[in-house]
């Protein structure tokens, strides 16, 4: 991994199209600005992990629901968790 020391206000360029600016540096956190073309998704690392987790979670209960989870053979309709009071 390339390690570069930067001061607030300084930037890093990646591939000529992506620019990362160090905006502010706190005790535990760094505020960064990212300038990138629209076709390049920019997201926090945790969002990527959550995205992958969501896709896997959705896949994991797709298809027939096991009876132990209230599959159709168990009968009984599902009911909303939130009451019908006006929002």
């Amino acid at each position, binding site marked *: 991994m390339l390690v570069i020391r930067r001061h607030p206000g300084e930037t890093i360029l990646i591939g000529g199209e992506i620019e990362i600016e160090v905006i502010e540096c706190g005790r535990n956190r760094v505020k960064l600005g990212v300038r990138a073309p629209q076709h390049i998704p920019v997201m926090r690392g945790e969002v*990527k992990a959550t995205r992958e987790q969501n896709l896997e*979670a959705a896949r994991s209960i797709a298809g027939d629901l096991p009876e132990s989870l209230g599959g159709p053979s168990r009968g009984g309709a*599902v009911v909303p*968790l939130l009451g019908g009071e006006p929002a």
Partner: protein
Amino acid sequence: MTCPTAHWGPTTVDPSSTIEFPEGLPGFEACRRFVPLQHPGRAGLVFLQSLDQVDLCFLALPVAAVRPDYSLALSADDAAMLGFAEGFHPELGADVLALAILCLAEGQAATANLLAPVVIDIRSRRAVQAIRPDRRYGCREPLAVGEAVCL
């Protein structure tokens, strides 16, 4: 209103029982409207049924059912998305519901995403999958033995 569901066919729900994610969920950005459902035979479990994509239905548990001592941590962005004033700390159960999405990979123990619970404002019915600003929990936390889910 009647909505098609992934597992139980058409189901009638009151429109006020639905929730809206203004930005969708990571990986499902176009899916904004959901209805959280419960099956009488599986009390505690929540089926998060998408109204925009019929075959999308997440399985979830309230965070307190996974970790009784769970405390919510919202980033400033997520709090603003839910319309909370700065410095407001919503109370679990009273102001917001927080649901951990479960993953039931075949042959493996079920896990819960406690890093990014679905947080629902009970009053406005707005929701966001709120990634914790701290690292207190992970996105694949094992369910304790004897928990509500017998899979």
